């Protein structure tokens, strides 16, 4: 192994979180090196308009995702089973290459609500401690809305997020999401125009007394130049969005909003096709000294650094910490240890509406165009006596209708033959669906650990996921999907089919890539891994950033919060840590 000259900062992973921190710290004048496992990705070459509209390649063959041959996870539903490897991605779609999963994400950009950051305290205050089901291990985040808000603002400004503010500096405005926390500024770009499906849904919801709003979206609605000086073009609703890169520079990702500015800086270097193997610490274990990585010819290198930032997505963040023996590995039996605890996912629910006489032109779509309501999300409704906590974001977001994957037919239709073909043709244009992406609350036996049986090509253990849906979440899914079905019914379709999440977590069908927890933030080192600055307890020059920090998952998409946490960590480093390197508990 060759040792390279020391740098000020090494950042692992150049997705959203890593690129943002690298940019902020490079702006501070530090010498920054970003190490990325996958290739350099560039809109013009990799997401060229002549080749990007390829469902087989990007969705079925998972072109932009991490190759499972490089690294995958093993999964089981409970600790008594033997975990087996996910040989192809199903349930979620981890990214690879500069931009990370943020190249092929959908772009829905929510902020979490103020209550989320003190969820356990909030629920206890409202319903009493006894109302929290025994199976759940909920926690506060150790931070507050007031501390988060400016960083949400920063992320939205970089991403050009479109939307309509309902709570602007305390001024309430109709037409936005009435449940959002107070915003210190408007969305950078106005809401996207809406296709037919979301429009029809919004009318129906309004008629029932709900308050529909345009889903906040980091697919920009008009030409926009962000604070880093990078310009994006308006979304064309092409419908090849989620799972694809954007050929129009319309979908915000690190490659369209951060890296073009970062790469111009003299004091930043990116190493691509280089996989970090370990975070190194000195003999005390209280100081990170750098990382080791392997390049694609198989040579190993040591990159020493004064500051180490891990931003390798939930799974690899946790795996790297376990492999580097940072923090104590969580044990569900003794309930000791923090690395790996509070892993959570999300409950995906939906209702399909089959009409006879409507044409939704479902190919007009985009990952984050749509209308939603939040009356049944999180704690926006009274849970007294319902027997569960949590809820979901209800919305219609037509993402496009490329037909290998999108062929809605009523239940019991044959899967092939003439009758099947007739049903596919008859329902393709005239079907829509209402989704409900709902919370996932943590339990003691849902956790991440190293797998004892399966290893990666370098011979190191894969990450093992032990996960099943909490009873709480399944009850919530039933209830919330019932509410969606009522709205659907009021729209008078020929037939509705409601699918609340039920049974065991199944790793085969896609649900969402919103995997969170495992290296969580909090105010107490005995139950969390990082403090509110994303700084690792006891290793003050190491920061682990991403959705791995979420102590549980609300009914929202994570990336607005991942981006805000990246800005928050960068802010703490710039304004406090660099002046006085060390633990920043109260800063």
């Amino acid at each position, binding site marked *: 192994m060759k040792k*390279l000259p020391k740098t000020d900062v090494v950042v692992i992973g150049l997705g959203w979180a890593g690129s943002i921190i690298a940019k902020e710290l490079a702006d501070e004048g530090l010498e920054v090196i970003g190490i990325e496992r996958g290739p350099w990705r560039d809109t013009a070459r990799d997401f060229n308009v002549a080749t990007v509209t390829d469902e087989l390649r990007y969705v079925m063959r998972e072109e932009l995702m991490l190759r499972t041959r490089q690294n995958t996870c093993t999964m089981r*539903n409970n600790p008594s089973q033997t975990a087996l490897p996910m040989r192809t991605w199903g349930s979620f779609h981890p990214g690879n290459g500069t931009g990370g999963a943020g190249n092929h994400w959908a772009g829905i950009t929510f902020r979490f609500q103020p209550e989320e950051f003190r969820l356990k305290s909030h629920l206890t205050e409202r319903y009493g401690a006894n109302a929290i089901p025994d199976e759940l291990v909920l926690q506060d985040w150790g931070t507050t809305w007031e501390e988060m808000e400016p960083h949400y603002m920063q992320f939205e400004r970089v991403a050009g997020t479109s939307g309509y503010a309902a709570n602007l500096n305390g001024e309430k405005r109709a037409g936005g999401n009435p449940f959002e926390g107070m915003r210190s500024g408007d969305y950078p770009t106005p809401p996207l125009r809406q296709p037919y499906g979301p429009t029809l849904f919004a009318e129906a919801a309004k008629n029932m007394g709900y308050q529909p709003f345009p889903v906040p979206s980091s697919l920009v609605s008009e030409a926009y130049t962000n604070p880093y000086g990078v310009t994006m073009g308006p979304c064309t609703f092409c419908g090849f969005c989620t799972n694809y890169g954007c050929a129009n520079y319309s979908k915000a990702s690190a490659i369209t909003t951060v890296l073009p500015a970062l790469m111009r800086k003299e004091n930043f270097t990116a190493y691509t096709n280089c996989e970090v193997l370990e975070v190194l610490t000195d003999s005390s274990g209280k100081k990170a000294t750098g990382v080791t990585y392997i390049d694609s010819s198989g040579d190993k290198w040591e990159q020493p650094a004064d500051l180490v930032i891990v931003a390798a997505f939930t799974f690899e963040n946790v795996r790297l910490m376990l492999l580097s023996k940072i923090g104590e590995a969580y044990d569900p039996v003794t309930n000791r240890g923090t690395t790996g605890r509070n892993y959570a996912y999300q409950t995906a629910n939906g209702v399909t509406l089959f009409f006879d006489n409507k044409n939704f032109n479902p190919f007009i779509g985009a990952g984050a165009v749509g209308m939603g309501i939040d009356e049944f999300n999180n704690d926006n409704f009274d849970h007294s006596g319902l027997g569960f906590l949590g809820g979901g974001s209800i919305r219609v977001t037509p993402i496009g209708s490329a037909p290998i994957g999108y062929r809605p037919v009523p239940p019991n239709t044959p*899967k092939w033959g003439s009758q099947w073909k007739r049903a596919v043709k008859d329902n393709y244009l005239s079907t829509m669906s209402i989704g409900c992406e709902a919370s996932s609350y943590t339990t003691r036996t849902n956790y991440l650990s190293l797998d004892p049986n399966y290893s990666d090509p370098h011979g190191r253990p894969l990450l093992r996921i032990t996960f099943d849906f909490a009873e709480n979440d399944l009850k919530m899914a039933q209830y919330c999907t019932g509410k969606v079905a009522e709205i659907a019914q009021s729209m008078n379709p020929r037939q509705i089919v409601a699918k609340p999440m039920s049974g065991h977590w199944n790793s085969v069908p896609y649900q969402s890539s919103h995997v969170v927890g495992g290296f969580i933030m909090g105010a107490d080192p005995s139950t969390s891994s990082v403090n509110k600055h994303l700084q690792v307890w006891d290793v003050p020059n190491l920061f682990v950033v991403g959705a791995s920090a979420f102590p549980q998952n609300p009914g929202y998409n994570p990336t607005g919060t991942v981006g805000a946490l990246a800005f928050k960590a960068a802010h703490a480093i710039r304004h406090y840590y660099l002046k006085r390197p060390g633990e920043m508990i109260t800063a």
Partner: protein
Amino acid sequence: MKKRAKTLPGVTRRQVLTWTTLGVAATVTQAADAVSLKGTPGWTPFSDNPPESFDQQGWLFFTPEEAQTLEAIVDRLIPADELSIGGKEAGCAVFIDRQLHGFYGTFERLYMQGPFHQGTPQQGDQSPLIPQQRYRQGIAALNRYVQQSAQKNFADLQPEQQDHLLQAMEAGKVHFDGYDAQSLFNDVLTNTMEGFFADPIYGGNKDMVSWKMLGFPGARYDYRDYIDRHNENLGLEPISMMQWKARG
């Protein structure tokens, strides 16, 4: 701020050629495709990153007998009728042949390390076999079965007999010697649908037949003029990536 010379693992010759001419300082210390990037990596007009597709004639993976069996199957899964041509004429078997010949056929991108265990349904496909083996062994087992029961190959059965056998395979009600009939059915159904609905550049969906049947306009990429036209039949003719290529 410190300044230092960058020395790092290098780039492939092709990357050096494209990038150094465009002003990226990439330092080569050894042959590898790990890349150290500074400055703004450029791109060359029309240097897009094309899909894996094969223009050769003839079968690239299947034997003629296997191809004949598969063409008979895809023509039952997607029969010719008033809505469209059948799976065979649409090129579904050719599509599968090209897929098996390419990276999909060997699962070269997938995790294929053992130990292999059956697992729960939630744990997904755990077969140690790659698609090339699945088709080779599966089609052989199917034809052995039909030979034993009817003394012919699958392709020579009557369409109704073929449908019956396919239904039994789908439902797990028939067992072949040496290969799981249901998993053969599932693989063929999945790949046939991919071939019928994917861009024609991969060999199936001849003349965008499935897209025309559905009203899917394919690779248009811009609906700004249409998004506000609700509940209308827009009458858009589909476009394939092949046409984008022709324009480029």
